[in-house]
């Protein structure tokens, strides 16, 4: 398969597959983080199913957490630019 003296194409294939898995793992790790915050905010006593109010709270929680992250990032960049800290 590999040309003598050339790079093994299986290596770059492996790198590609590993990068895809890393991205998937990052997504999963983020979901765990959201769960940590949003479960406490949205779920009272666990029932026999999640009612629609809870479902919608969980979805909103994710969106608002991301919005908050963006707000903080942007404002912090401005603060730093103005010479603070």
């Amino acid at each position: 398969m590999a040309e003598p003296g050339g790079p093994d194409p299986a290596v770059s294939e492996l790198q590609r597959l590993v990068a895809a898995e890393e991205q998937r793992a990052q997504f999963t790790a983020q979901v765990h983080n959201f769960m940590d915050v949003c479960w406490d905010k949205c779920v009272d006593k666990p029932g026999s199913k999640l009612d629609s109010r809870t479902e919608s709270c969980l979805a909103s929680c994710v969106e608002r957490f991301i919005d908050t992250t963006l707000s903080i990032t942007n404002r912090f960049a401005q603060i730093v630019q103005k010479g603070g800290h």
Partner: protein
Amino acid sequence: MEGGFGSEFGAAGGGAGGKLDPGLIMEQVKVQIAVANAQELLQRMTDKCFRKCIGKPGSSLDNSEQKCIAMCMDRYMDAWNTVSRAYNSRLQRERANM
């Protein structure tokens, strides 16, 4: 993850032949990732469900506590799916706007 990836992939790494089998290696990688994710899920689920279901810890888990734990586990996984879908949607939307 403990132990790193090196030693477990010796066989799939081709041994004396030196030829990599990406398919075989990735199978093992995916299994390890799945195991680590399951451990993470269980640890966090246990924390949340203990807090929701157990008031003053007694000398054993009574029936209502056990039922609560079972329901809590199911709801935690339902919530996980909801959060996962919401996050995925947001990512798609952000990518569409780029």
